[in-house]
């Protein structure tokens, strides 16, 4: 049982250490680094395919079992088959096929994002009532208002040098918080990577 748990940890550590060594040592391991990266890319693509297959199988079981919401599963499977078989028959680069894909995906995705604008408008009305007053919400509100006004572009159109300088300075202000965010996120991701290499974190599950 212990071997079963140890082997994946060893594989992860070995893969990580090899790539790190190749990156830092350079030339001696450069050829092998390309090969290992190739294996990783193929495996990542296969993992994505397996994930899609699992999704389809789950919905297929819903349809066959007549479970609640099986109609939606049926729609999903039909859409998947139409898209997948169409690509295999016509080719993924076929113009007509891509036109059909675009005709379905483009309205759906851009409408979803457009819907987000409508939902955000409603959310903005409630944000202070739900979150209350705090330094974070107050600075957020003022910042949002200031950047909305800047985004209007009307102040810039006035072409007043002093105003332009002030606007440029205001637009640089988020740099501070963003830098803090990036460093924080970077440190978190780095620590997570180290934990995986050291076997303290096992994202593949047990």
């Amino acid at each position, binding site marked *: 049982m212990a071997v079963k748990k140890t082997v994946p940890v060893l*594989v*992860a550590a*070995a893969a*990580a250490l090899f*790539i790190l060594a190749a990156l830092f040592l350079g030339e001696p391991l450069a050829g092998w680094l390309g090969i290992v990266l*190739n*294996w*990783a*890319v*193929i*495996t990542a*693509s*296969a*993992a*994505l*395919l*397996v994930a899609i*297959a*699992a*999704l389809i*199988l789950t919905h297929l079981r819903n349809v066959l079992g007549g479970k609640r919401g099986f109609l939606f599963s049926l*729609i*999903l499977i039909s859409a*998947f088959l*139409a*898209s997948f078989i169409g690509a295999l028959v016509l080719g993924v680069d076929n113009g007509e096929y891509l036109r059909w894909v675009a*005709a*379905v*995906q*483009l309205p*759906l995705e851009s*409408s979803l*994002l*457009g*819907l987000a*604008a*409508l939902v*955000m408008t409603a959310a903005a009305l409630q944000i202070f009532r739900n979150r209350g007053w705090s*330094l974070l919400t107050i*600075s*957020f509100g003022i*910042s*949002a208002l*200031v*950047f*909305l006004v800047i*985004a209007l572009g009307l102040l810039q159109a006035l072409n007043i040098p002093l105003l332009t300088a002030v606007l440029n300075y205001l637009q640089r202000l*988020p740099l501070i*918080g963003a*830098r*803090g*965010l*990036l*460093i924080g996120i*970077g440190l978190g991701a780095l620590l997570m*990577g*180290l934990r995986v290499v050291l076997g303290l974190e*096992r994202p*593949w599950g*047990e």
Partner: protein
Amino acid sequence: MNAMDIVLGIIGIALSVMIFSYLLGDNFFFRVALYILVGVSSGYAAAVLLTKVILPRLIEPLKQSGTDAFWLALVPLVLCLLLSLMLIPRLVKAGTLPLAFLAGAGAAVAIAGIPRGTLAPQLLSVVNRFSPELLRENAGADWGGILEALFILLGVVSVLFYFHHRLSRKSAGAQRPPLVEGISSVGQLFLGITLGMLFVGFYSAALTALIARMVWLKEFILALLTG
């Protein structure tokens, strides 16, 4: 405008209306639209991965038996087979090995890339503002620059402070010293400013998409009317 354009246009309008029906609440049409989106995009993605990655990089080398490419392709083949066994509920554990390999590779790339791509440049850009060379180049102290550098330093440190102590307070629930509280407050201020800009940015993107959809609808209707 030919018949195909009209058909595709009507499909586009129908799908858009289904999505916007969410304004009335989560409903059947909205869900149908989402399931169609998931189905079509996953089908297309699967086809692209299969034809652009798996076939040329895994299957093609395996056809050239005896070559280096053949032998090198056996490793990903085994990994892919183990992954595909995950589709059988009893053999889910078979996938741990390829997933561990992927996790290790991803971790290594992150460990190598983050310090060089984000941490070091971002920290150095704060520290370098106090560099003696910079002062020499400016023929004396550029107090404006130093003030700005101090401002940025304070901001970055306070934001990091806020993150750290927010987490530690969550875990410990202890009362924080006034100094820590004060620095965290400054961090909140800067974070709020950044989040405000992010909010406006996301809203602008969403608004642009919404306007683009409306413009498309307007143009389609006009094209239909004018033939």
